[in-house]
């Protein structure tokens, strides 16, 4: 019997450290890395100074930069940049940081979304559920309208606005303790008030340029990001993601419900506040460099959960890689314009279909049974739709690079909307964890 073969200490150690990593998760991570690298390369190769993908690849892997301590010091610490050729300079100084920032943003939002979905025990929660997005939007508008001389502080004000909204939400929700429902409702209330004030402030702006940059902030954009943004977002991301990864085990207990978690010895209020705070740090640092990129924190944990199941150790690990993949791919679309968006979306949908298919085929028996019951059709539909979009884009003259520099948040929103639709059509129990 299974019980006799697995009572040794060895399997216990394996189970505690790596036992939860399975083939499905590894497959998902590999696909995500592939998408991120490909998206990054496309991002790096297009632009005013255009190059082919192999040229981009050789510039990115250029050993003169890659193994140059001075260059890395310049990138990561902001010291003076050493001499390098034109292509390396453009790639490494302008385009690579944008990809890296996008990856961090995706990582942070995805992990924060996973944390909030567990804390609020709601599958439809996102990093912005506790009023953070509208709070930071208000921070941005206040800076532009009342402190127009301090626009260089907009990243800080955005992060501070979001964090303040979170604190206000917690204060409102607290009544001798909180509950997921109270938190979500308080988040809606604070979000609405901040949103109204923010919209009101738009009427005080008479310069269209200011309106546009404010809008770029509240839709989320990676345009013009630099190594400075990498330096800004990296430390916070590393710390908060590290804590969230350790906290995954606690999230697993938290989703069993307050009463059970307490009976198991968890200090529920502390765990909830601590994990939320960590997720807010991750979210705020993402907002500070890219503005409010929508839907990433909602979709990514959701996709990951659908593929790897509801163990939060797996969800966080998966989100860590799928988040960057989504933002990088979406940013390629944002940068390269509508026809490219269609191609990219086609590829994304195709890949999603492939991931579903591969996940279903290589997964455990239980996963396979579930796949056959639920995902055969969506995977097929995804493949057909993805191929169809690629075909249409091809008929329309192929991907024409227009360098539109759309805010990336618009693209993620365009991906997120249809995903929501899919969710509503597919799921019997919307909101189950």
């Amino acid at each position, binding site marked *: *019997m*299974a*019980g006799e073969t697995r*009572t040794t*200490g060895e*399997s*216990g*150690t394996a*189970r*505690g*450290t790596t036992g939860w990593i399975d083939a499905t998760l590894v497959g998902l991570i590999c696909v995500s890395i592939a998408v991120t690298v490909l998206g990054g390369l496309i991002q790096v190769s297009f632009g005013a100074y255009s190059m082919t993908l192999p040229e981009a690849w050789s510039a990115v892997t250029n050993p003169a930069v890659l193994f140059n301590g001075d260059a890395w010091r310049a990138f990561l610490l902001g010291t003076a940049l050493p001499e390098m050729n034109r292509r390396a300079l453009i790639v490494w100084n302008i385009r690579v940081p944008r990809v890296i920032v996008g990856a961090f943003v995706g990582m942070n939002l995805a992990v924060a979304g996973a944390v909030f979905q567990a804390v609020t025990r709601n599958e439809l929660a996102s990093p912005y559920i506790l009023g953070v997005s509208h709070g930071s939007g208000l921070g941005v508008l206040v800076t532009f309208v009342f402190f127009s001389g301090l626009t260089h502080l907009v990243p800080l004000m955005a992060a501070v606005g979001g964090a303040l909204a979170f604190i206000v939400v917690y204060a409102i929700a607290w009544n001798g303790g909180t509950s997921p429902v109270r938190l979500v409702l308080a988040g809606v209330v604070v979000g609405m008030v901040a949103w109204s004030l923010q919209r009101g402030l738009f009427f005080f702006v008479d310069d269209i340029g200011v309106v546009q940059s404010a809008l770029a902030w509240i839709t989320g954009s990676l345009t013009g990001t630099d190594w400075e943004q990498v330096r800004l977002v990296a430390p916070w991301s590393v710390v908060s993601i590290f804590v969230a990864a*350790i906290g995954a085990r606690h999230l*697993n*207990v938290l*989703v*069993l*419900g307050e*009463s*059970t978690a*307490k*009976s*198991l*010895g*968890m*200090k529920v209020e502390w765990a909830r506040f601590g994990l939320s705070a960590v997720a807010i740090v991750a979210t705020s640092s993402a907002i500070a460099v890219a503005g409010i990129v929508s839907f990433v924190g909602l979709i990514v944990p959701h996709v990951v959960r659908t593929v790897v*199941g*509801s*163990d939060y150790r797996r969800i966080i690990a998966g989100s860590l890689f799928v988040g960057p993949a989504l933002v990088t791919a979406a940013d390629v679309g944002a940068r390269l314009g509508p026809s490219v968006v269609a191609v990219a979306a086609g590829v994304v949908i195709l890949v999603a279909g492939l991931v579903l298919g591969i996940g279903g085929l290589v997964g455990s028996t*239980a996963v396979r049974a579930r796949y056959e019951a639920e995902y055969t059709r969506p995977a097929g539909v995804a493949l057909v739709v993805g191929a169809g979009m690629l075909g249409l884009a091809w008929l329309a003259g192929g991907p024409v690079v227009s360098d539109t520099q759309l805010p990336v948040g618009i693209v993620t929103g365009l991906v997120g909307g249809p995903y929501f639709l899919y969710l509503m059509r597919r799921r019997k129990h919307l909101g*189950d*964890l």
Partner: protein
Amino acid sequence: MQTQDTHNEDAQPSDAATDSALVGTDLEIGYPTLEEPVVTVDRVDVPEGEVTALVGPNGSGKSTLVKALARQHRPDAGEIRLNDRNIESFGQKELARELGHLSQENTAPDSVSVEDLVYHGRYPYRGFFESVDDADERAVERAIDLAGIDHLREKSVGNLSGGQKQLVFIAMVLAQETDVLLLDEPTTFLDLHHQLRVMETVRRLNEERDVTIAIVLHDIAQAARFADNLIALDDGSVYDWGPPTNVVTEELLEDVFDVDAAVRYTPDPEIVPKRSL
């Protein structure tokens, strides 16, 4: 053991302080939205090493009392002592190593495996950074064995029946390896087979591991068969307290449950309900 047989509202054991694992005194337990306390008891005892069943009609305060005893709900007045120590003085994990509690409704994500869920029972033994060790593994194996769910361990919770799910949650609480266990209506909504499975697990746990158990039961006949002691609650106070042969009477069924029934002693009490009153 105390064998008082006082058929009045203030039934109390007199000398239970020394051998009770869990004692509540002068308890008043209410909810913020209600003016009157839901439960008012002068004294409630869960004797060490025995199975105590809380019985009573719907709304008599059984679950409220159990929640207070498990420190899930703070009483407005009174004191609860676990192993002669105020329950408020325990740390959260410390308490979870001494006292297990399974609430009435339990939910888990559908795709969690049975084994993973049972491992959550080891939560109070693990530090923030620690992973599972041999002791955890052994405790989980024992719990799975005791609950008889070895054949389910690889399954995911969403694919289980209500009865199987309940046994899995019981295994999770067993993995906590506590000396005292509070179970809130673990057999409600289960078919007869799984009801008996749950009750047999409880009995085995008590006999083999000497665990003190307090269990809320809906079915008084079942309580009479499996428990060493009954606490009969009526409208938030203790109606009677003691071994089933003394507590289960036609009078109790009439006063507390509003049922006209015949009780035969063979020697365990057997209840034949006739009609509602």
